[in-house]
């Protein structure tokens, strides 16, 4: 098989001339490869920086007594993702295989690969991602930071009550098989990709995958002590540091300029500029609509809702950012901001306790954003920016909407099922929840034996 590939590639090289092998023969990389690689690694660094954003948003929205625990979780989750994705995740996601999982080059990136050769000149086992002309490790690092983001989403929803070790083990599960398998379906040339399902930067692959796993985790854990009164009504458990939460939200917003525009994986000037603006427009619109919604519905413009509105808009535009017009991104953002506020109230009613609003942001808007591809995609824009000619329902493409629905349903079913089993095994072995006494005193003392604000007087009456 490999010999045949080599043979056909050699034949192609003869036909296409020297250009096809220029990057392959040890000569200096072309300017395009250099610029594309620079863009991809810079974008990856921005996405990496989102780890800090998540750490500060989550710890700010939680109570002071759990701050060390949340910061620790955010630190460790990226380390775990890095190793898990290197070990097996990348191979399952991008290795050549069947429609459901990758089968070649599974372990430690050991498959054959001649990146940055692209298209027909590519010889290797990671052919689903051969469309971008950057070295293998640039592809790997860029995809790795996305995997880390999916895994870190879980942290917020399960905060303030999950055992530290259980969370670490679940993060490995996210990086090793939950995230990569759905990723293979969509970005690894799997069955959803073949069906024509499009998710440009990961509303489904990253955000709703993280969201579904977080949902099951939050359900299995149950609400925090004191979240619901004896009458069953939800009580507010205010976060301890909204300055940190705001800092984190801005860091995440900045990171998204790597997340979405970087997903071109090529320094394509008009494409990255277009995506930059759709991304920012959706965030801005969602900030305003979430603030307005909370003002009208709850009486005051709640900063927590403003922050979650920003993130909701960013999540919602993640899938359609390369396929929709700037005007559509504005509408998508406006809807996302309303959705996130309603979702927070909805999850509270359902007795699903999500301390930071991760489900409302990543799950609800991940699903919404994925459907937006099927609603707002415009053929000319999608072709010029995203490289695929697709139209959404509002622009004469009913089929695309159905395909997006199938993608949402299939990824939901898979992640809910597999993460449920994983959480269940953890519950039966390590246990998932800390003792009531530890939860009341705070996980900082119970799990880590230290405090975030040593020497400060903080009320821990809640």
């Amino acid at each position, binding site marked *: 098989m490999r010999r045949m590939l080599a043979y056909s590639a050699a034949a192609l090289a003869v036909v296409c001339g020297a250009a096809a092998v220029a990057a392959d023969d040890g000569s200096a990389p072309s300017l395009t490869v250099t610029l594309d690689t620079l863009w991809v690694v810079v974008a990856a660094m921005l996405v990496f920086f989102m780890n800090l954003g998540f750490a500060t948003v989550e710890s700010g929205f939680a109570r002071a007594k759990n701050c060390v625990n949340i910061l620790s979780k955010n630190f460790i989750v990226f380390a775990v993702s890095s190793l898990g994705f290197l070990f097996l995740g990348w191979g399952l996601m991008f290795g050549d295989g069947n429609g459901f999982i990758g089968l070649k080059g599974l372990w430690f990136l050991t498959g054959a690969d001649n990146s940055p050769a692209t298209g027909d000149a590519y010889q290797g086992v990671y052919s689903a991602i051969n469309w971008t002309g950057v070295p293998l490790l640039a592809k790997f690092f860029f995809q790795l930071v996305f995997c880390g983001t999916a895994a870190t989403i879980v942290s917020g929803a399960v905060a303030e009550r999950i055992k530290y070790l259980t969370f670490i083990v679940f993060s490995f599960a996210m990086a090793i098989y939950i995230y990569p398998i759905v990723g293979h379906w969509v970005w690894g040339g799997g069955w959803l990709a073949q069906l024509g399902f499009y998710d440009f930067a990961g509303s489904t692959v990253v955000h709703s995958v993280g969201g579904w796993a977080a949902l099951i985790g939050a359900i299995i854990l149950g609400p925090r002590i*004191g979240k619901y009164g004896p009458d069953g009504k939800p009580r507010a458990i205010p976060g301890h540091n909204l300055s940190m939460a705001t800092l984190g939200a801005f860091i995440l917003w900045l990171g998204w300029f790597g997340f979405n525009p970087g997903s071109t994986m090529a320094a394509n000037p008009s494409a990255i500029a277009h995506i930059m603006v759709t991304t920012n427009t959706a965030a801005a619109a969602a900030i305003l609509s979430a603030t307005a919604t909370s003002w009208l519905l709850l009486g005051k413009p709640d900063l927590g809702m403003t922050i979650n509105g920003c993130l909701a808009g960013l999540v919602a535009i993640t899938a359609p950012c390369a396929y929709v017009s700037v005007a559509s991104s504005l509408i998508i953002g406006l809807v996302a901001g309303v959705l996130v506020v309603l979702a927070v109230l909805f999850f509270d009613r359902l007795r699903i306790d999500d301390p930071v609003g991760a489900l409302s942001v990543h799950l609800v808007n991940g699903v919404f954003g994925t459907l937006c591809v099927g609603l707002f995609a415009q053929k000319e824009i999608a072709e010029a920016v995203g490289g695929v000619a697709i139209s959404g329902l509002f622009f004469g493409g009913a089929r695309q909407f159905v395909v997006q629905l199938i993608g949402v349903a299939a990824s939901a079913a898979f992640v809910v099922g597999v993460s449920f089993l994983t959480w269940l095994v953890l519950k039966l072995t390590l246990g998932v929840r800390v003792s009531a006494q530890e939860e*009341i*005193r705070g996980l900082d*003392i119970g799990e880590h*034996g*230290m*405090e975030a604000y*040593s020497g400060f*007087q*903080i*009320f*821990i*009456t*809640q």
Partner: protein
Amino acid sequence: MKLIVAYIQPEKLNDVKQRLYRREVYKMSVTNALGCGQQRGYHEMYRGVDIEVNLLKKVRLEIAVNEDFVEPTIQAIIEGARTGNIGDGKIFVVDLAECIRIRTGERGKVAIG
């Protein structure tokens, strides 16, 4: 007039407040406190070095009451704060010489209200 001072577990404050409201005791002051009694402390570690934390976080309640409210207040605090474990806290009752409401200048029983 008595001043009732109670040191309780911080997370029991809500329960105590509810019990007090039920007995129509609405006025109180609450402050953070550090303290130790029979309950031993716990150990923290900071970068590999052990710290013995002997003073634990408590909440201090101060309630000034007229004589007929002394027992109900004590009962309410006990009902709200008792878990049966070491560390539930203590209640001190001391005589109160005078009480003045700043706004009106009222003194004594009326001022306690």
